[in-house]
């Protein structure tokens, strides 16, 4: 264990530099880059809101907040998960030339992708706050001190993404077509997460319990609770969240650890 921690500390600068490399490459050519990455979710929100608040007219009071706020908070979490998992899954294959020539702890590449997604999430959070404050001014949302607890669901999503990223990146080394499969799975997953609809809509449907098996449902719900509704996270959902993160992380670590020595033979 001590050996692993020492190794992590030794390669921490690498993690930092790889992340800042990604950041520079993404934002170097456009001064407006950061601005765009906050504007983008806002634009999508406007479209989604104008369509779905009409479709969902009758269940809108269930969500207890303006639809725009409901949507953008949900998509904040899911976009992060989607970006982190998709970019982690190619992290090993994309760094093949490096892995073949120098020893570097390979999990660094997955951590880096998740960390970079976390930075992007911070910019998207600005967009969310803009929307929230807009509705605060309109008197439709009240600010609560619990808003400072948003790091809890975000942190859980981060851990969960690392676990999924470790699993996916391992599978991708051996089966490249997983990348396409994952795109399909993510699309299905986003529909099975209450992002554009409140879960109450499905109350009497068998889909209700399917959604309750979805860890992201809890991350999303808790984010809305602490950020908008001023409620604290229940012990039950804390336990469910920690448990699902733990399981996925352990699975990811075991799989990755077992397979990592073979990576080089397949990339």
């Amino acid at each position: 264990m001590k050996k692993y921690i020492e190794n992590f500390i030794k390669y921490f600068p690498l993690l930092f530099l790889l992340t800042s490399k990604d950041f520079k490459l993404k934002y170097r050519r456009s001064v407006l880059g950061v601005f765009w990455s906050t504007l983008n979710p806002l634009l999508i929100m406007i479209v989604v809101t104008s369509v779905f608040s009409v479709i969902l007219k009758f269940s809108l009071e269930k969500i207890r907040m303006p639809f725009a706020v409901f949507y953008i908070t949900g998509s904040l979490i899911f976009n992060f998960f989607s970006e982190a998992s998709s970019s982690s899954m190619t992290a090993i294959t994309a760094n093949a030339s490096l892995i073949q020539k120098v020893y570097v702890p390979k999990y660094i590449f997955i951590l880096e992708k998740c960390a970079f997604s976390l930075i992007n999430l911070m910019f998207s959070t600005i967009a969310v706050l803009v929307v929230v404050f807009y509705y605060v001014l309109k008197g439709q949302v009240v600010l609560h001190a619990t808003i400072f607890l948003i790091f809890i669901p975000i942190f859980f999503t981060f851990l969960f993404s690392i676990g999924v990223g470790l699993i996916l990146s391992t599978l991708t080394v051996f089966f490249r077509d997983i990348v396409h499969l994952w795109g399909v799975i993510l699309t299905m997953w986003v529909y099975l997460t209450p992002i554009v609809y409140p879960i109450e809509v499905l109350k009497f449907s068998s889909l209700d319990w399917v959604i309750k098996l979805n860890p992201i449902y809890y991350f999303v719900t808790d984010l809305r609770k602490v950020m908008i509704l001023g409620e604290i996270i229940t012990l039950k959902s804390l336990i469910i969240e920690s448990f699902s993160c733990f399981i996925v992380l352990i699975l990811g670590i075991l799989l990755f650890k077992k397979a990592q020595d073979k990576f080089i033979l397949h990339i």
Partner: protein
Amino acid sequence: MEEKASNIAISVKNVSMHFNMCSEKLNSLKEYFIKFIKRQLFFSRFIALENINLNIKKGEVFGIVGLNGSGKSTLLKVICGVLKPTIGKVKISGRISPLIELGAGFNMDLTARENIFLNGAVLGYSKKFMNEKFNEIVEFSELREFLDVPMKNYSSGMVARVAFAVATIVKPDILIVDEILSVGDFKFQEKCNKRIKELMQGDTTVIIVSHHMEEIKKVCNSVLWLDHGHLKMIGETEKVCNAYKNFS
């Protein structure tokens, strides 16, 4: 005969390296399932190294010779930890600086300045250390005016200069050199050779792979001859080199 453990820089014990070679590159789930159902999954095993045993003493300059594909680079990769041997163990005492392929880990979209720090981190150096050594690296590579140019606009020799400068900033305990000096103009080659000689003077252990017999004869204390993954001969430079020459 047992040698004193503290004198040994690198000990390679019963190391074998096998590669799975598929007749075709099989890396999609779909193909895998189809082949699996049709029972067409054949893996042929390729033995790149077989039962290699060797001890390299501290401060020794050790040469490896052999024909193309005999497993020299594979052995070096096993020694520096990039490849994990299928069977056997490698024990290293000290910090390794691998000069296996220059510029591994350079991102061509970044500038040289950024790449120097990135490459330092790949080799496990701290940011503070890199800050201290930055000027020295730039001096050595003689590319100060190109520092803030993306490296995709560099020539391959220029890339090699930067990479070599980063890789040799510290005096490592073990230096591994795999025919890297072929790029770069003659002046820079001389400079590199001088730097390697400096490193060799101390108690640094050096492993050199080269096809230039003259170079091997000039610098090595002992030489290993690899043939198709087998250890054909190991021992005194002159003896092994002559045997290898007469053989090929």
